[in-house]
């Protein structure tokens, strides 16, 4: 029996792109000249990350990076997030976060505006998490941390 069958429908959650981003998270570094940073904690499981944002003069997200530790789902989610929010305005990034949380919790995204479609498509590999209630927090931690950074707060918790 292959690992795939043995673990049932686990590929719904651990799609190749998740495993890949989990293993080799993109933008996994410190931004020394960040305009904004914040820390995210998932105290129950010990996940922790630090997020760095660099803004353009006209208020777009110029660069996003993170460091930290966590499970494949939280690392992949943070990795994908840093990729998708680059070039977005804070408002756009926040709207994306709201849409993503819907996706993570329900597997669907009725609120997704057409304008978000492109970005959301890159995040859909994470939609499988909705079938694993105790893991939803892992997927949303990065987005909580982003909100905190955009709001100028230093800490976020996914409790």
């Amino acid at each position, binding site marked *: 029996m292959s*690992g795939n069958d*043995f*673990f049932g429908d*686990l590929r719904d959650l651990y799609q190749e792109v998740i495993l890949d981003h989990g293993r080799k998270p993109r933008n996994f570094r410190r931004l020394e000249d960040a305009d904004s940073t914040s820390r995210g904690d998932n105290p129950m499981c*010990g996940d922790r990350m630090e997020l760095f944002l660099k803004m353009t003069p006209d208020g777009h997200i110029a660069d996003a990076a993170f460091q930290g530790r*966590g499970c494949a789902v939280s690392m992949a989610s943070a990795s994908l997030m840093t990729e998708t929010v680059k070039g977005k305005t804070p408002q756009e990034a926040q709207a994306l976060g709201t849409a993503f949380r819907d996706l993570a919790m329900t597997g669907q995204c009725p609120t997704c505006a057409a304008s978000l479609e492109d970005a959301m498509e890159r995040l859909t590999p994470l939609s499988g998490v909705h079938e694993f209630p105790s893991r939803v927090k*892992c997927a949303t931690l990065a987005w909580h941390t982003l909100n905190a950074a955009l709001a100028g707060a230093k800490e976020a918790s996914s409790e």
Partner: protein
Amino acid sequence: MSFDVHRIRQDFPILSQPQHGKPLVFLDSGASAQKPRAVIDAMTRCMETAYANVHRGAYRLSEVATDAYEAARGAVARFINAPDAREVVFTRNSTEAINLVAHSWGRGVMRPDQAVLISELEHHANIVPWQMLRDDRGNPLRVCRVTDSGELDMEDLAAKLADGKVGLVALAHMSNVLGTVTPVERVVALAHAHGAKVLLDGSQAVVHRRVDVAAIGCDFYCFTGHKLYGPTGIGVLWGKLEHLDRMPPFLGGGDMIESVSFEKSTWAKPPARFEAGTPAIIEAVGLHAAIDYVNAIGMPAIEAHERALVDHAMRKLSDVPGLTLLGRAQDRGGVFAFALDNAHPHDLSTLLDRAGICIRAGRHCAEPLHTRFGLEQGTARASFGLYTTPEEVDYLAGALVKAREFFA
């Protein structure tokens, strides 16, 4: 009665419930154990035929309920060889038992300059109440080191007792992460020689070992019903009567008083003094049934079964490539926390769940211990009950190998 684990498994209805289409392999008994039919039936019978509030009615049904409640107290006393059933106080769980001591003994009997000595391997339940005592009354908190093998550093313990300023030593009898069993007789002798009382958190130990509080010589002992195959909502604090007698009450209300006027109330004697309000009657009956169940199988038989299982698991888990076991104590029970190189504990737990295996991931309410071992991200933990089989251990080991491939 010879120990037949496969027959024993039939006593636990949940064990025949498949998970994700696979047989349930429940390896999280250290967090909470499953319940045998005897416990479920005892609670049902109590509610169907013998229920009323206790200590209050002069009618027969209430007397029957009171007798059942007090019989549970007697069963607990015999189970841990307490000299007197009045030394057994029912609480909600271990956590409340420790908080009760932190309040009534800590604030009511100890002087604020007396320290509390715990260890690095404690469960949060045996850390936070003492921190709250420290922040509230000033009692210093000392922490005994744990060796790399996951055992109490007895030299450090002696050193931290040496100045005679420790009022209470509060230690786990068995670690819920490392499986380490504390050499409690030595600890008690050492502590008493330095004028300190000893509280043992037996939440894990009592499930795996025959516990004899008289032989151990400790001052307080606590455990929690739901890990001992009993219901939730009930735990035990045992304390020497001479100590309980000196302690002011913790919670105020009905049944813990002798007389009440607005000016002044006087307290009932222990154990009533510490059991304010309607107690967990049905749960006490359930705990009694759990103790009877364990006694019928026999603690020696359970110990022997688990020892064999632990040895088997040590071998099997050591064979899993990339697996690092936390703690290598000589004297250990059936609890195994580990890291698997490229798999995060949470991913691992989710994965194994789909194979029907329930293990815990995280820091198991022992964050400082994980910090001590540099494992802030937590560990995965498999813990055994009396219904755990060698085949389940083999299945786990095989699944871990596959999981490692999955995340490779």
